[in-house]
């Protein structure tokens, strides 16, 4: 056997495994998306078996697009959640990366503390935030507002100044279990988890920044701001693009956090909607799944182009 044959043989298991993993479930989803297929139906028991005689054409797609009002809400909510997380993590990530890119006492420990949230499992992240931090009564959210009210109430007793504080309304803690506020809770906890990721990548990239160029700019009298805008930002353009794309792919399929935070309160994204359909209407779930694949692919194509270009032949 020559080298080429051996090389091909060595790759075969990996390629075959991934090929099956990609094609079989996706093929089934595509097939189901064209069928009338439900898990329970007393009226039409034949619909509970996936078979060609239940062919529905694009009926499921039409149903999802036009008849189920949840679909557009889920798309909108997915984009709201992903977009907000991206803006927060990139801005905070940049600021923090620049902050810790300078040497100061205890920098190693600061880095370790900063990166830690990224390794917390998503389920723990969600349970921790929604209960112990954001709960309006028992969490720190509730306790902090209560403490503040207490403080203001105490200040009201002061002479003269008290009249001013008497104008303050009693504050109410925000409940993060309503539809829209629970989306904010999800944004908050995911941004907390993924900002460290952005920091880590920007930091790695900052370390490869051309210091001589910066010193030259300094000699020419460029301000710190000018250096940042004309040297650092262009240098970070590629890492920023990568952070944005990788996060988009991960967050478009966000699930655990949504499920834990907002079970049943109407806050949903595309994967959660698929989960809801899956409890009975498999046809609609599959059609929605195909939409999710298309959405993810739009992002993926750009990312793969960039990563592929980077391969040294």
């Amino acid at each position, binding site marked *: 056997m020559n080298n080429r044959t051996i090389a091909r043989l*060595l790759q075969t298991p990996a390629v075959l495994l991934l090929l099956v993993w990609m094609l079989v479930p996706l093929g089934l989803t595509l097939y189901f998306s064209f069928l009338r297929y439900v898990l329970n139906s007393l009226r039409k028991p034949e619909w509970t078996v996936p078979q060609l005689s239940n062919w529905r054409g694009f009926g499921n797609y039409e149903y999802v697009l036009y008849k189920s009002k949840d679909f557009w809400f889920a798309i909108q909510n997915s984009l709201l959640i992903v977009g907000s997380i991206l803006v927060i993590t990139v801005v905070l990530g940049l600021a923090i990366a620049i902050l*810790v890119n300078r040497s100061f006492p205890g920098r190693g420990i600061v880095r370790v503390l900063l990166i*830690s949230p990224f390794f917390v499992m998503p389920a723990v992240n969600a349970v921790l935030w929604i*209960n112990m931090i954001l709960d309006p009564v028992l969490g720190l959210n509730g306790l902090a507002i209560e403490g503040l009210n207490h403080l203001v109430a105490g200040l009201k007793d002061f002479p003269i100044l008290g009249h001013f504080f008497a104008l303050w309304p009693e504050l109410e803690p925000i409940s993060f279990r309503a539809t829209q506020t629970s989306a904010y809770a999800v944004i908050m906890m995911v941004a907390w988890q993924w900002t460290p990721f952005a920091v880590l990548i920007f930091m790695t990239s900052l370390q490869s920044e051309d210091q001589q160029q910066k010193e030259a700019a300094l000699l020419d009298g460029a301000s710190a701001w000018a250096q940042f805008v004309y040297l650092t930002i262009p240098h970070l353009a590629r890492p920023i693009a990568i952070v944005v794309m990788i996060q988009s792919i991960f967050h478009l399929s966000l699930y655990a956090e949504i499920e834990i935070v907002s079970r049943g309160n109407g806050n949903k994204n595309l994967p959660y909607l698929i989960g809801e359909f*899956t409890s009975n209407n498999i046809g609609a779930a599959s059609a929605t799944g195909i939409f999710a694949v298309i959405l993810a*692919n739009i992002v993926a194509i750009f990312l793969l182009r960039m990563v592929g270009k980077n391969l040294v032949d």
Partner: protein
Amino acid sequence: MAAIGSRSKLGDILWPVVAWTVALIFFFPIFWMVFTSFKTDADAVKPEFLFFFTPTLENYLNMTENYDYWRFAINSVITASFATIFALAVGVPAAYAMAFNPTKRTKDVLVWMLSTKMLPAAAVLYPMTYLTKNFLNIFDTHFLVILVLCLINLPIVIWMLFTYFKEIPKEIIEAGQMDGVNTWGEIKDILLPLAWGGLASTALLCFIFCWNEAYWTVRLTTTEAATLSKLIEGNRAPEGLFFGRLSAVSTAAVGPIVVLGWFCQKQLVQGLTFGAVK
């Protein structure tokens, strides 16, 4: 944004203070979870015991009774370990072939592998349940969880190994071929000793990803093969009265992984950006 030359005295003091403050804010939720895990359930919700309380180990000692922690933990260890081993067993030969005998298509194959990672899991949830329950009869088994964890991490494993292997001079491998060493010998005696560090960090990162995986492990198990993600997810209800014990079990679930993560920060960048950021 202090530039190199314009450091002021004030900046020298203020800079570390700001950096430390930001770091402590980010770490606070984790600290709070560990802190609360030493409070009793009753103390945990009382404002008067917010910071000062009598620490207790009760939550940790009762973890088995309250949550059956060890059963889930053992499942997590088993599935994450075997998935990592299998991913390496399949990934090392593939990455070796791609790094040292590249063809015109190698680049395309690598990019295609990565693209399988971008398939939204929710889209194929039902077919997976359907196949594993009705046809293969492997629903809720360790085998299934290991297989799925291995498959979803295989692209990252191959990609990371590929970037490490590429840095090894080709001449070393070719010298081995001249001496008549066979392929297996090349991998075992030449490649693996040289790429040991890269191999270890790939394994570590793969293990962390397997451990934290929360979609498939929750959806494809019920009791037998349920992992820690499933355990925590099952306790999502507002458990106001059980903050203490919930914190303890959460700490036990993430503690080892956070510590492991500290050791592979650098590799994380490479692994997650597929070598695109250096």
